[in-house]
């Protein structure tokens, strides 16, 4: 990057009035409008230790949309996400990135298009927020290239977007759960990919932080057109924040579409083996699942 270009982006940052505008800057400073990369699974089979977890699914992430993958524990939703992100080699079928078998594309090249935040990332002892977020620049650097102004800019914007700029010099170990999760999101944002996969990013967060995080990802999706796929446990938040909902059971996709269309009481009870009422969320006009257990219910069996 030339210095005048760096100057220009500095000015961009100055003109930004808040984190949302930093997002807009993130879009423009990428130098291109998102090219709408596509990610799809074709007859994808995934196994651990020869035990098949996912039984040949076909799935296409709608470009520029937020997809949520839901399902009971052990249904293979996290496995599917790992498969899509080429963290797990398929035992059958393929994952296609822009129509090409992802296993034939160099790892590092994939990493400039597709970012993944796994379920249990590890923060090394003593690492600061800035250092951690900076490691998201790895795929852009190569074995010998030095850190440059574009890296600085990407990190600064990732920090601004996730409201973690004021934590920049803190040690990651000293942060609260919500702050730490935002820092990890900043790390994958610094990677600057058009596709973003997140495995249960709201686990261990309180309700306010869950909503805040999903809002942030929605901002990102709307401003930069990032295609996002999230594995989420909370059905109601998934329904509210998903453009596209994928419902899995025992290693297969059983329903797929917009939350309003697919999430009926029948689907929920067949997938989760639990009776429920489905109401309309008064805030978002999306399905609201109210579980019915054996106790504390006025309904007859």
């Amino acid at each position, binding site marked *: 990057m030339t210095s005048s270009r760096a100057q220009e*982006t*500095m000015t961009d*940052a*100055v*003109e*930004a*009035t*808040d*984190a949302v505008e*930093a997002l807009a800057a993130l879009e423009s400073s990428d130098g291109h409008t998102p090219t709408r990369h596509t990610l799809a699974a074709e007859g994808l089979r995934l196994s651990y*230790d020869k035990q098949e977890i996912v039984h040949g699914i076909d799935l296409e992430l709608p470009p520029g949309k937020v997809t949520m993958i839901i399902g009971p524990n052990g249904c293979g939703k996290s496995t599917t996400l*790992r498969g899509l*992100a*080429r*963290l797990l080699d398929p035992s059958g079928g393929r994952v296609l990135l822009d129509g090409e078998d992802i296993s034939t594309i*160099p*790892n*590092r*090249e*994939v*990493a*400039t298009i*597709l*970012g*993944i*935040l*796994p*379920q*249990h*990332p*590890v*923060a*090394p*002892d*003593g*690492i*600061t927020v*800035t*250092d*951690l977020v900076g*490691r*998201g620049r*790895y*795929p852009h650097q190569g*074995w010998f290239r030095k*850190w440059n102004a574009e890296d*600085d*800019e990407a*990190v*600064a914007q990732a920090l*601004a977007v996730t409201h973690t*700029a*004021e934590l*920049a*010099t803190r*040690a*990651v170990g000293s942060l609260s759960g919500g702050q730490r999760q935002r820092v990890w999101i900043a*790390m*994958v944002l610094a*990677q600057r990919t058009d596709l973003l996969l997140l495995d249960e990013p709201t686990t261990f967060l309180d309700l306010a932080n869950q909503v805040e995080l999903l809002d942030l990802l929605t901002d990102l999706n709307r401003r930069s057109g990032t295609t996002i796929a999230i594995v989420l446990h909370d059905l109601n938040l998934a329904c509210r924040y998903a453009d596209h909902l994928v419902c899995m059971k025992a290693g297969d996709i059983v329903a797929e579409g917009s939350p309003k269309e697919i999430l009926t009481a029948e689907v929920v009870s067949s997938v989760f083996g639990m009776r429920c009422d489905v109401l309309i969320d008064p805030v978002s006009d999306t399905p609201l699942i109210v579980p019915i257990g054996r106790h504390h219910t006025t309904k007859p069996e």
Partner: protein
Amino acid sequence: MSAAVDAAAFDVGTLAQTRARGRVRRLSVAGGLGVGVLAVFALSLMVGAAVISLPDVLSTLAGQGSRNTNYVVLELRLPRALAATLVGLAFGLSGAVFQNLLRNPLASPDVIGISTGASAAAVLGIVGLGLTGLAISGFALAGALGTAALMYAIAWRNGVSGYRLILVGIGLSALLLSVVSYFMTSAQVTNAQDALLWISGSLSGRNWNQVVPLLLSLVVLVPVTMVLGRVLGVLGLGDDTARGLGVPVDGVRLGLIVAAVALAGVATAATGPIAFVALLAGPIGRGLARDGGPALLPSALVGALIVLVADFLAQHTPFLPNLPVGVLTGAVGAPYLLWQLARTNSGGQGG
């Protein structure tokens, strides 16, 4: 202009500043350690049965020494000091790579059996086959590599987890120690003495025959390790995160393990296993660097400094017999290992 604007503008600038500060810090840590290494190195060329002044040492190094200083400096002290420095570098670097790779401060070649493997092979060579000199070194290196391969094979289960590798290593280490004991008890007294000196790690009598092969190996191994080691920062975020960032995790890890084993192997081959240097250097190096990174260079320099200082003290402390350097490093390292183990237990996990 709102406060948020300042925050955003402030940030690109502060980031650059923070990184500049980090760079200055890294340079000064490495520089400081480098000066320390040079100072002790110079001291060990000067001090001995006869003290030679620094100017005399320097002129001897430049090829203008007397016959006397030529012999003492170039044939006796220089190879020994070089051996100490190189072995320390190799152990320090090897330990730091292992500790970062396996994400465990206990993971160092002397704890997980690599050095014991080298010792067992060397003792077999000395006692069983009556080998001397370079042949012992070759045996030791083969022992280190063989042990590592065996360890890797036993620990392998669809990939290698750090914790399993450490436990397997400790088990193998115990097994190999019994092999060492068997050969020691069944050996002739003179052979046993040689073997004992070797397995306690000694720099005495090191000459160019050990130093040259060591130097040549390190010329290859150190740069390879440093380049591969650039990935350690990302590997430290967990395998999935590293893969997501485009690191070919299994290949890089295998490469780093081979490099680290070879480093520990060539060092052990030259001087015997100098106890706990690899274990100690990493944490001290990381403590000095304090950047959450792998701190390979500081760890390597700390390793060199530890061995140089320990050997200097082992030779020149008044009222002490002339000790093998490994005894001295062991006296410092063992309590540290105990402390680390106690801390590990109270935390309930390694690390």
